[in-house]
C-alpha cells in the first residue's frame, strides 16, 4: 500500500501508510428497506473563462455523471441543495438548469430525485413581509413542478431575516417556523429557524415497489400557502405548528421534510 507524508497539528510530518480499500460495490442490485437521498455536489469547470468568485462555471457532464453514480448505488438524488453550493456559489437560474438536466436524466433511467425549492432569488433585504417570501417559494416550487420535479423545501434566508425582526419587519408578520436544510448557514442562525430542520409542509409520497404510498405526514401549512395546491388526500390532522396554529393539513404533494439535526 502507498505511503504518504501528512502534516500533523504539531507541525511535524508523519509517514502514513494507507489501508486497503473495503471494495464497496459500485452498484446495488437489491431493493433497499430505507429511502436514502444523497444531496449531490456540483463539479466545477476548471477550464472555463470565468472568474470563479463571480460566475458559476459548471462541468455539466461530470456533474450528471456523479448523479449516475449515486443512482447506480440505489440512492436517490437530492438536487440543488446546499451541498450543490446553493447560496454559496450556485444561483437560482443555474440551480434550475441543474434541476432540468438532472430531472431529465433521472426520468430516462428511473432514478429517484427530489429538488430543493427556496427563496434564494429574493434578496433578504428586499423582502417586505411574509407574502414576498411565500411568493418567492411559489415561484421556485412552480418552476420545479413544471419539470415534474418533487419538492424539498429549503430554509429561507429572507424568512429568517424577517423572523429576526431585521429591516423593521415586525415578528408577528412571520408566524411560522420554517424549514429546510442549509447546514450551518449564518444567515439562518436565529431562534425561530433550525438549520438542518425541514419543518414546513410535509406530505411525502414515494414510489417504493408497490406504488405510491404516504410515508410521512406531518407539519402544517398556512392555508393561503397551499391555496393553489392539492390538498392532502389521505387524512386530515391538526398541525403541530410551533406558532400555535391549528388548521387542517393542506400540503404540497410530494414535499419532503427532514428531521432536525
Amino acid at each position, binding site marked *: 500500500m502507498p505511503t504518504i507524508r501528512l502534516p500533523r497539528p504539531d507541525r511535524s510530518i508523519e509517514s502514513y501508510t494507507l489501508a486497503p480499500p473495503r471494495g464497496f460495490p459500485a452498484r*446495488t442490485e437489491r431493493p433497499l428497506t*430505507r429511502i436514502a437521498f444523497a444531496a449531490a455536489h456540483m*463539479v*466545477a469547470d476548471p477550464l472555463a473563462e470565468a472568474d470563479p468568485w463571480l460566475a458559476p462555471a459548471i462541468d455539466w457532464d461530470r456533474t450528471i455523471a456523479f448523479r449516475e453514480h449515486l443512482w447506480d448505488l*440505489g440512492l436517490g438524488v437530492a438536487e440543488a441543495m446546499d451541498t450543490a*453550493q446553493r447560496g454559496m456559489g450556485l444561483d437560482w437560474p443555474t440551480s434550475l438548469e441543474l434541476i432540468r438536466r438532472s430531472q431529465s436524466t433521472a426520468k430516462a433511467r428511473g432514478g429517484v430525485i427530489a429538488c430543493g425549492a427556496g427563496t434564494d432569488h429574493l434578496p433578504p433585504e428586499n423582502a417586505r413581509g411574509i407574502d414576498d417570501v411565500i411568493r418567492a417559494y411559489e415561484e421556485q416550487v412552480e418552476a420545479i413542478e413544471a419539470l415534474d420535479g418533487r419538492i424539498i423545501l429549503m430554509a429561507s434566508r429572507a424568512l429568517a431575516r424577517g423572523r429576526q425582526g431585521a429591516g423593521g419587519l415586525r415578528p408577528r408578520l412571520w408566524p411560522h417556523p420554517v424549514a429546510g436544510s442549509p447546514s450551518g448557514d449564518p444567515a439562518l442562525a436565529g431562534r425561530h429557524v433550525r438549520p438542518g430542520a425541514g419543518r414546513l409542509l410535509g406530505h411525502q409520497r414515494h414510489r417504493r415497489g408497490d406504488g405510491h404510498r404516504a410515508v410521512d405526514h406531518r407539519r402544517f401549512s398556512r392555508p393561503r400557502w397551499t391555496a393553489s395546491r392539492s390538498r392532502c388526500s389521505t387524512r386530515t390532522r391538526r398541525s403541530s405548528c410551533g406558532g400555535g396554529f391549528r388548521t387542517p393539513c393542506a400540503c404540497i404533494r410530494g414535499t*419532503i421534510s427532514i428531521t432536525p439535526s
Partner: protein
Amino acid sequence: MYTGDDFNYAELIAGDGQHHSDALLGIFDAIAPAAASALAHLAEGDEAAFHDILAPTVPLSRHIFKAPTRFYKTGVVFMAYLNGHQDHFTMVGGQESTRSTLHLAELFRLADKAGLLSDPDRAARRMAALLAVRGIS
C-alpha cells in the same frame, strides 16, 4: 421522516426495532458506496454488517461537517477528487479554499480508515499534489 443529521445517521437509520428514519444527507455524497453497501446489508437483516460499515464513516462525517459547518462542501468535493469522480479540486465560487491543509489531511486519514479511498495509489497521488501546492513535499 428523513434524517438530515450528518452526525448520528447510523443509529437513526437502523432504528430501534419499532421506528427508523429514512435519510437525506449531504454526507451520502462523500460516502455513497459505503452507505449503499450498509443499506444493502440492512435490507438483508444484517444489522451488524450495517454498523460495521457505517461506524467508521461517522468520524469522517463529523470531521467534514465540523464548524463552521457551511464549509463542509469543500470536504465533500475533496472526497470526489480523491476518488476520481473529478480530475481537479476546484469548486464553484472558489470554495476549495475554505478548509485548512490540516483539515484535509485529517479527512484523508479518516476516509482511509473508513475504507473509502477506492484507489489508494490515486488518492495518495492526489493528496500529495495538494500538499505540494500548500508547501509540503
